[in-house]
């Protein structure tokens, strides 16, 4: 019996939607657990340990608690914006996963403009935070919104300039092609492609720093900054409204780490040239996620001015220098 090709396509789409949503939900839940465990061990504590073995059921308990809470709409909020904001933050990060190739044949939809699509969706995230903060009629939220927007504008530039450098080197915006060009051992990865530009490792660091800032992670967590702004944009959100923002934050970290893996670390390519596959992609991605958590529990939050200074005075000039250098090298060699 042969299945109708359209039916096969439909099954494929449903399988990818379900699979990706499960992947994102599991990641969001268990990265919180990982974060708390890592935070604990960095401070030489244990972290969650009471709920289930090694505290493994803790995220489920937290999720149940958040879901059973009443969704209070505070008096005087802009109800439409207030309700739409968590969705507007969550959906783009889910959409980003569509074009991410996890393995040779494991990609929901291999777009030729995959990179562009991811950045287009990722930029909606900040709009969602702005809506939520502005709509919730809270002074802390509004301060947070102002910070988030200026931070994201500042860090989008060096990130995109670095990405343009990668696109120039690989000549494609198709994420699958970008990875395929880096196959065959770690010396082929973009991070070590010194023939294209000697500044490639620096470009990777710039990308990573911008990724931290774009996902509003410490030390750039100006959006939330508990000690100054209560919870920033999320101050007025109860229960699962806050939960969705929280899930979106972790989903964004996974997107960012995946992108860094694809653009610089050779995606599913094995560093020693044997057994390329999904396992290598996940290993590299989670190593980067661990680094993100590690950085959060090492550095205190920067002040807002030094945050903007870092972007405008250091990251942007260096990323442009890298861009010019790369184009010159591409022309010469």
């Amino acid at each position, binding site marked *: 019996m042969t299945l109708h090709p359209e039916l096969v396509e439909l099954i494929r789409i449903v399988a990818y939607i379900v699979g990706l949503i499960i992947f994102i939900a599991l990641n969001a839940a268990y990265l919180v657990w990982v974060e708390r465990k*890592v935070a*604990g*061990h*960095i*401070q*030489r*504590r*244990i972290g969650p*340990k009471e709920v289930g073995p090694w505290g493994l059921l803790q995220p489920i308990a937290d999720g149940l608690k958040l879901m059973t809470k009443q969704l209070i709409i505070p008096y005087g909020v802009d109800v439409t914006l207030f309700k739409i904001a968590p969705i507007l933050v969550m959906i783009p990060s889910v959409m980003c996963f569509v074009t991410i190739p996890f393995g040779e044949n494991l990609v929901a939809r291999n777009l030729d403009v995959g990179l562009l699509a991811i950045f287009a969706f990722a930029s909606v995230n900040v709009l969602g935070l702005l809506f939520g903060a502005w709509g919730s009629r809270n002074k802390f939220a509004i301060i947070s919104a102002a910070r988030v927007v200026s931070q994201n504008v500042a860090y989008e530039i060096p990130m995109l300039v670095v990405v343009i450098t990668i696109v120039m080197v690989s000549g494609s915006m198709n994420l699958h092609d970008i990875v395929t060009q880096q196959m065959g051992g770690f010396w082929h990865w973009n991070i070590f492609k010194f023939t294209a530009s000697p500044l490639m490792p620096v470009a990777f660091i710039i990308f990573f720093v911008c990724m931290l800032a774009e996902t509003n992670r410490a030390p750039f967590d100006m959006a939330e900054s508990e000690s100054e702004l209560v919870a920033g944009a999320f101050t007025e959100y109860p229960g699962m409204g806050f939960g969705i923002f929280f899930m979106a934050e972790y989903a964004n970290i996974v997107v960012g780490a995946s992108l860094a893996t694809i653009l610089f670390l050779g995606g599913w390519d094995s560093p020693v040239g044997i057994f390329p596959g999904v396992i290598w992609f996940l290993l590299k991605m989670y190593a980067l996620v661990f680094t993100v958590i*590690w*950085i959060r*529990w*090492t*550095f205190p939050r920067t002040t807002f001015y030094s945050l903007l200074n870092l972007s405008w005075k*250091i990251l942007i000039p260096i990323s442009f220098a890298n861009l010019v250098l790369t184009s010159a090298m591409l022309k010469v060699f």
Partner: protein
Amino acid sequence: MYTYLKEICVGTWSLLVGLAITIRYFFQPVVTVQYPHQALPMPPRFRGHTELVWDEKKAGHKCIACMACQRACPSGCITILGEKGEGVKQKTTLASYKLNFTTCSLCGLCVESCPTKALDFSKEFNLAGTTKETYVYDLLKRFEEKYS
């Protein structure tokens, strides 16, 4: 230009130093005590509520119900009842020793004033209750329960 580059290099290096410290901590064993499951032994000078001490020679407590501690107590939280004994000397024995721990400030004057050294601080710190009466301790009864 020189200070600009130097600042970047020094700054990056300081960040790496910080990361090295935290990763070293990450792999070191934990130092916390898992309190409800484990507990540290209390230091010798820890002051819990007072208790009667066990004496080997008398095979019991040493209290002679002289009321010195009751008089010394600035908060008036000690109530002692003595019992006149039989015989010529009519030695007093302790009938009850009530300590109202809700007003006790653990100043230790009772321990100091005791002529027979019959009192000492216990190492008890797991104290929780729902009524005030929980904290009116009968030290004699506690003593008997502990050493029976």
